[in-house]
């Protein structure tokens, strides 16, 4: 979901959306996050002179589906698309929106009109020039009912897209919509290729032709996807000759391959990250917060959780450091609200909820919950305090989390049944129909802080994302204003306020922000953790001539 690319994970593990190790490459170019205080690895080849050549082999859990940014909804496809295609804008290392295919842009008419000035010198991989028509064509496909894209929603607010000249695009919105700008990070597809044939089944979805730093070379189903450096890239040729995306569907096997040095990079699990240092003799490890958080969501229509004191008591009863130790081996941090600490919307004044089971018990007592019959479980009016905690099957951190929560709540006399359900069944039979007491889920977030669909009271219908049933007038108002406010400072204040309210109201208990844990072979020079993660300068990475492993005839 971040930057318009849902992190699908492998179907096997059903990581499905967000959370858990976000693949390193999903952070390439369009990612966020600030450098962390962890010891940065000592690179072994830093002093060598830049050189071209060699290949970068990255392991992926799943194969790609469409190499078309409009159709791709899985992280594997998203990673490849981000190297082959460009959007009009992108996030830089400090998470500021900067031009990509667009040299610059102007926001006009109170935010209802954006004028993009395109780079004049860009060519598609097949040599055809890139023009404003391609942008308009991409927009048309995004809103074409026959195109199987899940990303139409951001573009439905557009009234029209004009092309005053080949290097200018004017987008007219029905109403001011701040996240619109970010939505133009969507990869632009070539009109001259796609205008012939069906968009959904077009051969170019398997053999993409983009504008990006890497050109598509080959795709061996379920084995690998190979990209080769684009010598004519408008920002300059990438130094690494090849980008090889190797599909290894099992994380343990990836790790074995890593130890054999047959892959150069993978996303580590916390346990792998913490494994013996000798495993990493040839690798540097990196760590920075992922743009995501895991939460315990209450069904606010359930009388049990309507009382804010109860929700607060549950929050106090949770030892979050133990959760983070247990689930993430300490590779993560407690969450205070719906924005990760690397986001400008994050309100640093919101305090962590302390671990205080005594206070939790007292608070529950004021709400009428005490252990009157002495059986160790709280009760009120003859009814025990018990509920079912659900999460989806196949996501180990969530399962672990549920089990630890169960343990913690038992200590203050709340009996929790853990139920782990298959993803679809969980969502459709339980979450959508509000047939749950509490759930453990996670959101991975776009860089823009607009969370209208998660918190606005209009989004409570079946199948919508405010499934906990949260309704708060002030939050509604903040969300509505946040989407229209182009002034950065004012907008930040709105989201800081919302962060504070949600931390007080606790419709969710925000559990933790996981860390991204990529590892990269030491022969690569250039990886650097920034707010945008680690792949933001991938084009400049290189391997000194003497250390190069793979050779290609140019």
């Amino acid at each position, binding site marked *: 979901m971040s930057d318009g690319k849902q992190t699908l994970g492998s179907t*096997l593990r059903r990581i499905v959306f967000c959370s858990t190790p976000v693949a390193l490459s999903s952070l390439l170019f369009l990612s966020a996050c600030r450098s962390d205080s962890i010891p940065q690895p000592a690179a072994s080849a830093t002093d060598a002179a830049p050189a071209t050549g060699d290949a970068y082999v990255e392991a992926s859990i799943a194969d790609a589906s469409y190499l078309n940014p409009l159709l791709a909804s899985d992280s594997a496809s998203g990673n490849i698309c981000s190297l082959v295609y460009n959007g009009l804008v992108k996030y830089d290392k400090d998470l500021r929106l900067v031009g990509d295919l667009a040299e610059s842009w102007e926001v006009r008419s109170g935010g209802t009109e954006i004028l993009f000035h395109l780079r004049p010198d860009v060519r598609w991989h097949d040599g055809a020039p890139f023009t404003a028509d391609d942008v308009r064509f991409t927009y048309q496909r995004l809103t074409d009912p026959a195109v199987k894209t899940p990303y139409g929603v951001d573009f439905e607010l557009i009234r029209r897209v004009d092309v005053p000249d080949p290097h200018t695009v004017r987008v007219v919105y029905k109403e001011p919509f701040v996240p619109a700008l970010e939505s133009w990070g969507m990869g632009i597809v070539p009109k001259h290729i796609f205008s012939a044939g069906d968009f959904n089944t077009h051969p170019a979805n398997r053999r993409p032709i983009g504008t990006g730093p890497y050109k598509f070379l080959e795709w061996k189903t379920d084995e690998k996807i190979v990209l080769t450096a684009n010598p004519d890239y408008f920002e300059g040729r990438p130094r690494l000759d090849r980008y090889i995306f190797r599909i290894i569907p*099992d*994380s*343990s096997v990836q*790790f*074995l391959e890593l*130890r054999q040095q047959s892959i150069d990079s993978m996303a580590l*699990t916390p*346990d*792998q990250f913490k*494994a*013996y240092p000798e*495993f990493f003799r040839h690798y540097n490890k990196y760590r920075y917060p992922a743009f995501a958080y895991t939460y315990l969501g209450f069904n606010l229509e359930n009388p049990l959780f309507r009382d804010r004191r109860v929700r607060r008591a549950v929050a106090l009863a949770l030892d979050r450091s*133990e959760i983070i*130790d*247990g689930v993430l081996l300490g590779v993560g941090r407690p969450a205070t609200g719906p924005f990760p600490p690397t986001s400008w919307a994050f309100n640093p004044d919101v305090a962590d909820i302390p671990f205080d089971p005594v206070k939790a018990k007292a608070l529950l007592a004021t709400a009428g919950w005490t252990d009157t019959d002495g059986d160790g479980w709280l009760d009120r009016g003859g009814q025990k305090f018990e509920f079912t905690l659900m999460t989806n*099957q*196949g996501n*180990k951190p969530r*399962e*672990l989390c549920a*089990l*630890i929560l169960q*343990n913690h709540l038992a200590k203050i006399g709340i009996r929790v049944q*853990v*139920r*782990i*359900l*298959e993803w679809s*069944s969980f969502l459709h039979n339980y979450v959508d129909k509000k047939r749950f007491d509490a759930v453990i889920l996670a959101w991975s977030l776009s860089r823009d802080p607009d969370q209208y669909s998660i918190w606005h009271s209009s989004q409570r219908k079946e199948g919508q994302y405010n499934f906990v049933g949260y309704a708060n007038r002030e939050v509604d108002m903040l969300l509505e204003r946040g989407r229209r406010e182009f002034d950065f400072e004012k907008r930040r204040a709105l989201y800081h306020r919302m962060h504070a309210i949600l931390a007080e109201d606790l419709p969710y208990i925000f559990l933790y922000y996981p860390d991204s844990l990529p590892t990269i072979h030491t022969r690569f020079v250039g990886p650097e953790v920034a707010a945008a993660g680690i792949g933001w300068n991938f084009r400049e990475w290189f391997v000194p001539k003497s250390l190069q492993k793979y050779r290609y005839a140019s």
Partner: protein
Amino acid sequence: MWSLTLQRFRKNKLALAGSAILALLVLLALLAPVLVAMDPLQQDVVQRLRPPSWSHWMGTDDLGRDVFSRVLFGTRISLVVGIVAVGLALLIGTSAGLVAGFYGGWVDTLFMRLIDVLLCFPAIFLILMVIAFLEPNILNVVVIIGLTSWMGLARLVRGECLSLRERDFMSAARALHLSTPRLLFVHLLPNVASPVLVAATLGVGGAILTESALSFLGLGVQPPTASWGNILAVGKDYIHIAWWLSLFPGLAILVTVLAFNLLGEGLRDVLDPRMD
């Protein structure tokens, strides 16, 4: 005949070994709560992923739970799933086979064609599909393994019935105007018991393997309940740092399934009438 069988059984060392292992497993499963001081669900995050020691014979898992207790309690799951699933298959298979084999004619044709259809499904495909689409839990696992494994038994029973039908004692029984159910259960069933017993014993091993594979995929017995497949799945994730987490459940599956197979093969040798 039975004393003779017993005598031959005693001479079959492998079958004997198999049954000894199984007896031990059943005992362990029954006594699991007595034998282990630790609750298999008791977490202790501080003690996570500890190698085997005196206090944790098989080490601890990623939540600091005692692997020995979990493997021991897993014995219950595996044995129950294996035996109940095969029991279900036996019930369906034997009934279908008896009815088809005894009545013959269109009843037989109907059953056999049904079995043909069912046998055409790649069993694991069907199992995965049903489990994935329904809610994964132990009951569904047992039922689906049972429902997908009775066909072989039915064919076996039917075949034996058809050959028995032609034998003298059946015509004698018919001449005495014995009722159909009586004929089926009193006269036919004991005669098909031997091959069915062999197939069922081997089937339990297969069912245990299927269950562990499903649990391994997260489609079987759900955590926190300990099942060998679950423990193994966790073990796989930590294979590079915690060998004990995959070694012990792996061995448990190996030994149990092996025991059932040795017993089954032994029974085949012992009960084989051609050995006379």
